[in-house]
């Protein structure tokens, strides 16, 4: 199987969908002539031309809204936000228009749009560029939220997102773009809403999404090597729809839970999952559910301190030992 980067996996997903469906198009700042600020769309303009790969001015509210409007007529725009942080410029379009359109029209209209881009900290780009808005997005009924942690999932999930008939916010990670893994050259789809057991274990469940999964896998390795602890690592992959069954099955098996995520703690995805676990698997818990999130402050620039603010494999390791105490 070919070994390719996360960014190539995303590109392949887009290329395959561009080939398959003439209604699919790519739009965003610097996606075409500049080949993408992070080179995710590299080569797509050359291959598919200006009708299907479109550079926009810096007008997020305008072009995201345009994409939503075009999707109402059946186009399937795949919109790039150079940084997901810029979603806030288009907030009204996404959360008033895309999220509510189907409901307010009594089901007459749907918005098959994908809005994708990197949503992460860790690269010292400061508070304005480091938002992790998955809980804010998933809060809105009508919106789907997907966060792939590796290239294989990125490709299969993005293809499903493009074919989905609802608006999907697809959150990537600049720190993962260069990561490589085996990704089939042939077509495959990963349904939205299916979590993945990344590592099997019996002593505790570490549940998260995005880059923290890569950290959790490292922490699980250390737990095993140093203490013989078998941690199960669950990658949610999709926040809404959410694979409650896989989460609960793991809790029933291990009886101990550590939730990890890069976002801030208040009203976050992990807060929601902790709630679900206590509602639906309380009797299976041998210890309180613990969470490891970023420190509760805007993203600091200072490079060494940004590392402190964010989760690390070491912090996950320590938090896991706490859960097992």
């Amino acid at each position, binding site marked *: 199987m070919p070994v390719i980067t996360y960014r190539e996996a995303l590109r392949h997903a887009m290329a395959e969908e561009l080939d398959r469906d003439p209604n699919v198009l790519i739009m965003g*700042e*610097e996606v075409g*002539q*500049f*080949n993408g*600020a992070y080179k995710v769309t590299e080569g797509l303009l050359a291959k598919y031309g200006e009708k299907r790969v479109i*550079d926009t*001015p*810096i*007008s*997020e*509210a*305008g072009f995201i809204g345009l994409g939503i409007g075009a999707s109402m007529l059946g186009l399937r725009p795949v919109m790039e936000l150079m940084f997901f*942080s*810029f979603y*806030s*410029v288009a907030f009204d379009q996404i959360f008033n228009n895309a999220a509510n359109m189907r409901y307010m029209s009594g089901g007459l209209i749907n918005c098959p749009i994908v809005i994708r881009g990197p949503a992460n900290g860790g*690269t*010292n*780009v*400061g*508070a*304005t*560029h480091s938002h992790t808005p998955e809980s804010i997005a998933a809060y809105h009924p009508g919106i789907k939220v997907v966060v792939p942690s590796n290239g294989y999932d990125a490709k299969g999930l993005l293809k499903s997102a493009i074919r989905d008939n609802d608006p999907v916010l697809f959150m990537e990670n600049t720190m993962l773009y260069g990561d490589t893994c085996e990704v089939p050259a042939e077509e495959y789809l990963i349904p939205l809403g299916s979590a993945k057991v990344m590592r099997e274990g019996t002593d505790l469940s570490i549940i998260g999404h995005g880059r923290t999964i890569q950290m959790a896998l490292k922490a699980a390795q250390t737990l095993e090597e140093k203490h013989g602890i078998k941690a199960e690592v669950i990658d949610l992959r999709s926040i809404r729809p959410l694979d409650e069954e896989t989460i609960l099955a793991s809790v029933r098996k291990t009886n101990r839970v550590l939730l990890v995520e890069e976002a*801030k*703690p*208040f009203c976050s995805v992990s807060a929601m999952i902790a709630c679900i676990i206590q509602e639906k698997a309380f009797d299976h818990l041998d210890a309180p559910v613990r969470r490891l*999130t970023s*420190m*509760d*402050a*805007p993203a*600091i*620039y*200072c*490079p*060494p*301190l940004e590392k*402190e*603010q964010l989760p690390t494999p070491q912090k996950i390791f320590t938090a896991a030992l706490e859960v097992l105490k």
Partner: protein
Amino acid sequence: MRKLRRPEIALNSNHHPVSKKSPHTKRPDDSAPAYNARLAPINARLGQDEQIAFYRDMVRIRRFEERCLRAYQQGKIGGFLHLYIGQESLAVGCCSVMSKQDHIITAYRDHGHALGVGMSMNELMAENYGKYTGCSKGKGSSMHYFDPSRHFWGGHGIVGGQIPLGIGIAFALKYKGVKGACMAFMGDGAVNQGAVHESYNLAALWDLPVVFVIENNGYSMGTSQARSSAGPSLAQRAEGYGMSWDISENGHDVLEVRDKVSQALKRAHEEHKPTVLEIRTYRSRGHSIADPDTTYREKHEIEEYKRTKDPIMVYQNTLVAEGVLNDELIAKIDESARAEAETSAQFADQSPFPTVEDIKKDVYWETDNPADRKSVGTLFFD
């Protein structure tokens, strides 16, 4: 409202589209003397010291930026670094005409403005290094400098996001009865943000003392003005809001910038009227350090600007011809700017980082001033 008339000047440079003749502009008759920024009231009686100061301030920005670049390459600076090289005449020209009551706000390409209002290289370089001695305690980064004591309100990373703040500052000045104005800077890419247009309307509707300064360097990242902006010129969009507008075609000329922006400030001070001022310039480096700068513009275009319009070179030539500068003085100014930049790098290097405890400070006014706290309940969650 009085409309500003401006002569139509076709650009010979290749990076800006030639402005189309607008129905509102008149060509000056041939007998009229050519525009000469030197004769403008703001420039007519400049002393040698002032002229040298403008020159020195541009050189200081250049040397600071070059030192930043080196620090970035040495791994001392993280994240983004957007250099101001090639645009020095704008920040220096604009800041040099600010009155004590005037304020400024800009985007992330903010080093020139920060130095222009008198912030020290030390606090800026330390900020770039993420150090506690930085102007924002290492929390903000190169993109987010602030110094309210010098009326410098940032340093903003979201394209166009600072412009509503700029008219808010102008609103507050007018509300308080202060005879001051706000210069709100943006790039040629920012003009396409909705927030900018909403701000234009509010400023014109409510007669706010603001100067919208468009630093038109021809590109927003890898996108040329022609590929991003409709209409004959960026400034002319002001007409839709009944706002005065003007273009400084020769933004590399610090004296022209001074003249144009001082006219707009006068309008703000005396009539509380906003102006859109587009200043044509060029960035001699890539968008940020990460930009390889090879795909969207021709090398010769960059070289041509550096050869013919580099603001420091142009002003140096002028001042040498006028006998204000000589080789010795030029070398001295350069030497001292280099030394100042080098010292700032050492200062930054030797300064401490903030501590882990600092991460949660400066989030809420109340937690920073616990004695004055009036709200109750939990503010931070872990």
